[in-house]
């Protein structure tokens, strides 16, 4: 027997010149089973975050200085989202996506994947994009079977690839914290000029706003905060114990 390969009654190993065992039955390697690999493409659809009302900003003034006429008013609505957590085991459930079966006894997944965002959330506050936190359409090795896809200060989206009961699943997680997400500048809708009849007009206008008169500040807004990612995956099951 050579010095580089050896066996004892209970062990076999390959040992390099530095004395390191590159193979050792006492310290099992990660066995990956290519014939059982799962490959495919699936869409990960992250639901829109729930919005939570709005804050309103009202202002008025004279276009031509104090006491002048006509007056102008403007009204803006800033939409918000609240604290929320989504995903398996979180306050709001998202059912995991089944990707396929692996051999019984699998205790390890090697995950390689590319991600492309096919639908992005609306711009926040009308101008801020939710950037991808990864480079799209590049092969990634997911060292811990997970990746963060969107990552802002109070906005996160990611996916975990899980082994559960002989099946492999994609588990989507998303979370957001209270923040402003929508700005409606209502000058276009509600900007009016008129000659006041009875001062003080700001107070009068403010009352009309609160009572939701036809020219009041808009309380309705819509924003789509969902995103969809297309993932092409190669998941190779294995065993290391």
């Amino acid at each position: 027997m050579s010095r580089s390969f050896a066996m004892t009654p209970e062990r076999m190993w390959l040992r390099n010149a530095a004395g390191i065992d590159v193979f050792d039955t006492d310290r099992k390697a990660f066995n990956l089973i290519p014939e059982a690999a799962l490959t495919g493409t699936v869409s990960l659809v992250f639901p829109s975050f729930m919005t939570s009302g709005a804050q309103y900003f009202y202002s008025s003034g004279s276009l031509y200085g104090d006491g002048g006429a006509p007056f102008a008013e403007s009204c803006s609505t800033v939409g918000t989202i609240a604290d929320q957590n989504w995903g398996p085991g979180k306050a709001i459930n998202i059912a995991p996506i089944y990707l396929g079966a692996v051999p019984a006894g699998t205790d390890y997944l090697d995950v390689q994947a590319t991600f492309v965002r096919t639908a992005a959330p609306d711009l926040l506050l009308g101008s801020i994009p939710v950037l991808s936190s990864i480079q799209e359409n590049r092969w990634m090795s997911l060292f811990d079977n997970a990746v963060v896809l969107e990552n802002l200060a109070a906005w996160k989206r990611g996916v975990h690839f899980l082994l559960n009961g002989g099946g492999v699943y994609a588990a989507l997680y998303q979370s957001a914290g209270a923040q402003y997400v929508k700005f409606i500048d209502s000058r276009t809708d509600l900007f009016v000029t008129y000659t006041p009849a009875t001062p003080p007009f700001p107070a009068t206008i403010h009352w009309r706003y609160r009572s939701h008169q036809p020219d009041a500040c808009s309380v309705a807004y819509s924003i789509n905060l969902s995103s969809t990612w297309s993932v092409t995956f190669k998941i190779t099951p294995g065993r290391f114990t």
Partner: protein
Amino acid sequence: MAYTFMESDTHCLLIAEVTMIWRKPDSGDKFAPYKNPLTYLHLIEFCSHWDYYTVRNRATVSMTHQSVPGRTITDARGFGTASVIYRGQTYAQEQVLLYHGAGYPPRFVVSQGGRVLPQGMNVQNLGDRARFVSFNATATDIICYNVGTSSDADLPALTVSYDVLVFKDASEVPVGPQLPMFWATDTRAIMGRGRFDTNTTTMRRGTGADSPFFLALAASFDFDVGRMRVVLPNGSIITEPGYAGGFTGAPFQRIFA
């Protein structure tokens, strides 16, 4: 069919067109794992037709991620009271971590201080400013992609040292003649046409004596109210301000490669 068979008290080695090392079953046909390896996954130590994390490149790379200037923009729409203040901006930067030249996008791991990093790891956390890194593979390079966000203050440049291991696909065409299925001399041994080769290493379970290197076996991060906590395998915890979840980390394994 020519073959060589060896056995010890606990293991069998059969060298043939399909070469395998397996632990003997407690009872019954000792060749059962060779005949039906998928039924005896827990007993298979090596199969020449399976894949392994055979190291083809390794390096420790120090790189500097760019600074992101602070910025404040006030958007005063309407007449005075209706305004929005935008703080900060985001820069993304692509940097080559390692040239590997494999000709295909290989498997790889990137670690820092012996802990394999999750994809999207927070490497700079200054409260209202942060930087996240992810890694990907092209046919020629391992790429580090970092996304930094400032506030009204700058996000400073950051120099980080990464350890990267690139693994060889079993299907990679060898340079020169095909390696043998099983071959051993006093100085070099090869199994499975290079899946194991004493000229390199192949990732396996480690011990305290041979490795300070840890791999998480499930996701290393958790979200809560839009914030993230990262728990490195057997390592440090990075928590964004505002996170109130209870994540304590995933199971992990000490590994050697």
